């Protein structure tokens, strides 16, 4: 479980992310082995003497390691989960040591298609091997080892983060004390694969994509990636939420223009979402990470039985879904609950009533926060951590 020769590279002046370089091979599910790799990460709070208060936050498809209360070095905005992480928040940085790592295949410092392949001295591009959720978790395990943490107090994440949480509990059952898969699923549905394929095809249809070889040209497939993000963003919301926010309201005009400008506010909003996304996300990363989600099927990894996959888990689970989430709807969480019941795991399951859709886990949802807080406080008592 120990690393051969881990080094943290904070030194390079052009490198702004905290990075762990793992100088040992990573055998991937696809059969390829990465000779070495980098895990970029952030931590918040302090590890206690007993090393029992560490929380691993797993980010979603378009997220990164900047989850907490700080300024993102690329976007200049605050971290993506400051509704939950911070002093006095549910994931209280004064009680917990919070770790968040950029996933393998990502584009915020971890090894991925936009990073340089040490063997060629050029960006990987499409020569980067296809990675899986399990591969992402394997890379995280090395980071957790490096940080000197044996058992994580909690592994928590929404959407693709929930998949990583489940993978942790299935593959490292003794290293997770509590697990919170939010708005997730044990496998990607046909509908989810379909939406991802639309996104990938939008990227690949952009001439600037150039078969993934665009890093030297100075011009990436921004239009394609933007369209991918626009389509995906719709799936993160709900019909009610879109209607409540925008209705059929017009954007800075009193009449429709009989053209293809963004007449409607909802069009303008989606275009904006697409435009800001391309400033911080790599199109090839988007291809690889969506693929990793599509391939995720925890039961299939374990002979077709989800209960078998979760048989050895010792973790206390809290599954959370949202009523208006049609991307990872409640039945997906309930299927996991049923499997956990079948192995008599300690499991709580709460469905939060909200019209905010899949993205509700990123937003201000008091009932969601109260659920998380109650569950984590209960776990903290069982873990022997002080509860305020």
């Amino acid at each position, binding site marked *: 479980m120990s690393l051969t020769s881990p080094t943290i590279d904070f030194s390079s002046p052009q490198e702004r992310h905290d990075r762990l370089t793992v100088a040992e091979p990573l055998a991937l599910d696809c059969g390829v082995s990465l000779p070495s790799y980098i895990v970029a990460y952030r931590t918040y709070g302090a590890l206690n003497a007993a090393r029992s208060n560490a929380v691993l936050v797993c980010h979603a498809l378009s997220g990164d390691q900047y989850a907490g209360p700080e300024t993102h070095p690329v976007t200049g905005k605050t971290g993506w989960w400051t509704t939950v992480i911070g002093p006095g928040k549910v994931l209280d940085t004064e009680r917990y040591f919070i770790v968040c790592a950029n996933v393998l295949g990502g584009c915020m410092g971890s090894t991925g298609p936009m990073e340089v392949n040490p063997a060629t001295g050029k960006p990987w591009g499409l020569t980067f091997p296809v990675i899986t959720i399990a591969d992402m978790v394997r890379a995280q395990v090395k980071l957790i080892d490096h940080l000197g943490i044996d058992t994580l107090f909690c592994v928590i994440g929404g959407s693709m983060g929930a998949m990583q949480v489940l993978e942790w509990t299935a593959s490292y059952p003794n290293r997770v004390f509590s697990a919170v898969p939010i708005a997730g699923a044990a496998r990607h549905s046909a509908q989810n694969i379909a939406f991802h394929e639309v996104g990938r095809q939008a990227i690949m249809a952009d001439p600037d994509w150039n078969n993934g070889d665009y890093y030297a040209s100075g011009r990436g497939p921004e239009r394609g990636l933007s369209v991918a993000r626009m389509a995906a963003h719709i799936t993160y919301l709900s019909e009610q939420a879109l209607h409540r926010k925008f209705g059929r309201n017009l954007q800075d005009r009193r009449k429709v223009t009989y053209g293809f400008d963004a007449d409607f506010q909802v069009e303008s909003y989606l275009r904006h979402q697409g435009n800001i996304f391309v400033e911080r996300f790599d199109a090839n990363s988007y291809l690889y990470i969506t693929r990793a989600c599509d391939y995720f099927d925890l039961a299939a990894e374990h002979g077709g039985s989800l209960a078998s996959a979760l048989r050895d888990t010792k973790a*206390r689970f809290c599954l959370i879904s949202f009523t208006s989430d049609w991307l990872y709807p409640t039945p997906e969480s309930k299927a996991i609950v049923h499997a956990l*019941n*079948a192995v008599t795991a300690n*499991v*709580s*399951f709460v*469905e*939060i009533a909200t019209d905010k859709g899949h993205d509700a886990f990123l937003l201000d949802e008091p009932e969601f926060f109260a659920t998380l807080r109650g*569950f984590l406080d*209960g776990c903290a008592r069982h873990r022997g951590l002080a509860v305020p």
Partner: protein
Amino acid sequence: MSADGGTVAAASSLRADLQLVAAMIPNGSRVLDVGCGEGELLAHLARSKGVDARGMELSQSGVNACVRHGLSVIQGDADHDLQDYPSASFDYVVLSQTLQATYRPRLVLENLVRIGRRAIVSFPNFGHWRMRLGLMLDGRMPRTPFLAYSWYDTPNIHFCTVMDFVALCDDLDVTVERSLTLDRHGRPFRLNPRAGLANLLAEQALFLLRRDRTS
């Protein structure tokens, strides 16, 4: 019954019938409370008896309240969600005042004694004299202070009497280890539940059950 934000009911304020249930459960047991409401019984068992307490509850508000208080509770219902649990996975499975609201009480009862080494079941007695008198004298579906619903809005769709329940237990080869007949406030009578008088006087009944396994 505490609502959101409040604390789970203290032991002293635990409903009388739930206190009788709690008294049947030894320290350190593993307990599943089916239809656990806002977790009053579970919180009491976890706190005062060191019980590994789990719950299942149909109402979302009840589930959320339980999890907010650190209890391990899932949303589910007795009719559909008991079948996933393996046999003998709990020491005690509790079904309190819920059997009459299930679609398939016979299957539910079979699941309770399968999942639990013992099952504790309580239910309102439709054989109580007020019920009988109400139907006989008024010719209307009975309503009592304990069961105040009208026929068209009651969640209680499968009423039984104490004698009906005992007969179903016999039918399913379920052994009655203990039984209590109670008044509306949960105070016990000393009456044999197989006796006609118990069926006439009890407003509710509480049974400790087990089914001996051949294998």
